[in-house]
């Protein structure tokens, strides 16, 4: 029982990070109508930079700040350099283009960081006890900050003028233009928010996740599935689904072979698409 409780906590902390990714992906898809398969790569860059920077500065806080800035900048550089031109073209082209970009990046990591997975040398002995389960302090921090960021984004989207213009663009791009929303600027800001969330996610999981070249695409897939299962419009739904995915995965990994456990989550998509194709948390069709 204690093990299950510990795995639930660990799964939730990873799930909170999945939620950050899924939110960003949903935001970019909703506002820019853009299928961004390179989204997970921002996380990978953040993890790599955290690991390298930690080795240099010996301070997780400092390394985290550097990595957050670097990965966000990396995301925006991709947006400015290529993605924003593709965003106006067909989904077909978007998928092909970003898929190819993922493979370029995967090979670039091999060149820059080498083939072996890079683990951070962070303190793994710091544990906290939570209702009888001992989990890594870093995991607790990741979970708490992750959930806090999700709430912050929910407020940003629901309550601010910027959020209103985001929702306007998602609902009707032409109408948004007519009402005087600067769609180019709002689109770029949406991407910035998404990139920052992904970068933060990467910094948060860096202490307990080894950086590895193929990691990004799998993360992106996971995030996409969460968006499809929960439906893009519901922030709470995305958070709940992401945490559920994290917990199922954590429990699965400890009882099944790794490669099967991480794939099993993909099966969840089948009943959802068959019975609630608009997503579990979708509002009534309008």
């Amino acid at each position: 029982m204690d093990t299950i409780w510990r795995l639930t906590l660990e799964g939730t902390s990873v799930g909170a990070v999945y939620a950050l990714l899924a939110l960003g992906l949903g935001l970019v898809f909703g506002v820019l109508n853009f299928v961004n398969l390179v989204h997970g790569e921002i996380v990978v860059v953040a993890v790599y930079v955290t690991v390298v920077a930690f080795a240099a500065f010996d301070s997780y806080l400092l390394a985290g700040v550097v990595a957050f800035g670097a990965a966000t900048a990396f995301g925006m550089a991709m947006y400015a350099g290529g993605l924003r031109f593709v965003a106006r073209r067909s989904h077909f082209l978007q998928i092909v283009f970003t898929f190819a970009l993922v493979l370029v990046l995967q090979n670039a990591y091999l060149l820059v960081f080498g083939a072996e997975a890079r683990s951070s040398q962070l303190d793994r002995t710091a544990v906290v006890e939570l209702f009888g389960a001992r989990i890594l302090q870093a995991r607790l921090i990741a979970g708490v900050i992750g959930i806090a960021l999700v709430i912050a984004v929910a407020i940003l989207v629901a309550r601010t003028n910027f959020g209103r213009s985001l929702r306007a663009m998602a609902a009707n791009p032409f109408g948004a233009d007519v009402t005087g929303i600067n769609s180019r600027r709002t689109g770029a800001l949406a991407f910035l928010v998404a990139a920052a969330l992904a970068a933060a996610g990467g910094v948060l999981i860096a202490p307990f996740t080894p950086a590895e070249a193929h990691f990004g695409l799998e993360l992106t897939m996971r995030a996409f599935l969460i968006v499809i299962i929960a439906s893009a419009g519901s922030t709470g739904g995305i958070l709940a689904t992401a945490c559920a995915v994290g917990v199922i995965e954590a429990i699965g990994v400890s009882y099944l072979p790794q490669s099967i456990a991480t794939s099993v989550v993909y099966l969840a998509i089948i009943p959802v698409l068959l019975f609630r194709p608009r997503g579990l948390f979708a509002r009534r069709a309008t």
Partner: protein
Amino acid sequence: MNRTVRLGVGVALLGGVIALALIPTTLKSVYVDLAFNTLLLVFLCSSWNLVAGFTGQLSLAHGAFYGIGALVTTTVAIGWEITPYLGMPLGAAVGAGYAALIGYVAFRRSVAGLYFAVLTLAFGFLALGFARQAPVLNGTSGAFFPVTNDPGMFVLDRREIYFYVMLGMVVAVVAFVAWLGRSRLGYRWKAVRGNERAAEAVGISPFRHKLGALTLSAALTALAGGFNAVYLLYFSPDLHFGLALQLQILLATLLGGIGTVWGPVLGAAFVSVLTFYLRQLPIEGPTLTAIPPMITAAIIAVVAYFLTDGIVGGLRRLRRSRVPVRE
């Protein structure tokens, strides 16, 4: 096309096939291998083109179908000593079944283009996850066939026979695509690609036609996977289920011209030869081998951006510049 031109094209094609058939007896084995891999890629691209080109459904699970074919053929051949002559069709059937499952889930509710691509990619990962635990591997990363000349098990010392089989498969599939392009079925598939609702309104069921195209395409792809495992006498999940192959299929088909008969052929030939020569580059070192795939992927990104209708589309535009490009 008038009769003379048609005759000329026919003679040229026949000459081309005869020239290809002479390769094993005239060229060095490195180049025979290259020719085999080129034909294999042509076959895969033409198969993928059936669903991606004709019905417009961007499937990213074809790497997995290919792997399933290889896995099934290997498992029954090594584990149960069932000959690949039966194992390959069996693999094709299992691949088709997996595709039918994906198609049923996706097309039932008409999952949009984007979600379909992501869904197929997810199913690809799912299949890879299970394949890595396949019993035939015994916990290793690859399984070998016993290497002895055994025609009953389709293990042949006369390697050129594999080449002829591959050539036959390519001729058959290209001929099929050429026929399809002018057939009722082909027009229906294209109608579904063009406008699903309009197709449905005139009595063409998008569900059935998309499902049919995906299943057929997957069966062919899985068949090729099984054949490749026999050719290599080796199966490995990371080789046969690889994303790299999926990308090559995408790149080659797009480069040549998606939805056309000759696009996948030209594109695959170009990509296969390009990859071959990129591998010959004097690049050493464990990490530097990442450079050739990087170049390939970079080329696809650029090509996808600028040349949406591929080589065949570009040629067509040159010939009669008034005619609008596909769609």
